[in-house]
């Protein structure tokens, strides 16, 4: 196996550990911190997939913004770290379902013969992204801005109350 694969396995391990922590940690803040770990691992996976821009976006949006948001929300809802209060009684069924899904998908993925699989990952340059984004994808781009604005206003209204004081 090439050294790249070695890196991949390390990174994948880190990511999976992070994800496991997220779903099993007994303390909400701890699972939020595990979430950071998982997200950074995913960013590293993006690097392995030769899409640098996306990795940086991942770090910028998730490493900085989303995690802070979640941490604040947590401290705000005062989700206490009480044993067992975080998981419901349905845990075993959830585990069952998750494992079934995982096994089936993995089988499907490994069995499939991907046609047109390139030997080299095509490196994505930021200029290409810019060109595509502002020519072919201009409409979704604008819509995204609308979505963001709606999210902003909605969040404000929800957090402050209808009349916004």
């Amino acid at each position, binding site marked *: 196996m090439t050294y790249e694969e070695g890196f991949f396995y390390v990174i994948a391990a880190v990511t999976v550990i992070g994800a496991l922590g997220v779903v099993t940690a007994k303390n909400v803040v701890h699972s939020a911190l595990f979430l950071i770990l998982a997200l950074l691992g995913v960013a590293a996976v993006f690097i392995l997939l030769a899409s640098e821009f996306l990795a940086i976006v991942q770090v910028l949006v998730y490493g900085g*913004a989303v995690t802070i948001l979640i941490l604040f929300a947590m401290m*705000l809802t*005062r989700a206490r770290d009480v044993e067992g209060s975080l998981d419901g009684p349905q845990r075993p069924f959830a585990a069952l379902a998750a494992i079934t899904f995982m096994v089936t998908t993995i089988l499907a993925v490994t069995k499939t013969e991907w046609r047109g699989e390139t030997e080299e990952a095509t490196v994505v340059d930021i200029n290409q992204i810019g060109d595509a984004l*502002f020519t072919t994808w201009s409409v979704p781009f604008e819509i995204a801005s609308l979505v*963001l604005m709606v999210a902003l206003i909605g969040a404000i209204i929800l957090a402050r109350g209808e009349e916004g004081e």
Partner: protein
Amino acid sequence: MLASLVANGTITQIKDFAPVISDVFDDYIAVLIATILGFVLVGTALIGNLVLSPRQKTEHKGVTYECGMLTIGRSRAQVHFRYYLFAILFLIFDIEAVFLFPWAVSFVRLGEQAFWEMMVFIGILAFGLAYAWKKGVLRWR
């Protein structure tokens, strides 16, 4: 000047200033090394501290510091929701920055259309900001 410079591809020659072939993978290997070194530096400092510093357990050494008084009530209390509002604002504008960076490096090539697209984008978000402003979210009260 700059625009013309960019237009007739002077940038491409200027890119040659870059001494090392900016190969993505190698870059991030360096980042990995840096991360490891950072951990190593802090770790060595902490280990040195572990070895060199005297350890003395007294009764109240671990008591939370609160101006010489004992803590009243729970310390890990609830933060205020305004912090959360500013986090939301930050999130939104952070995402805008995500779109701004590719735009910044390519809008001259793409010409007017891209420029005005981004202007509309900024305008819409600016409306969101104005709404927040009007709602007094920005005024901490």
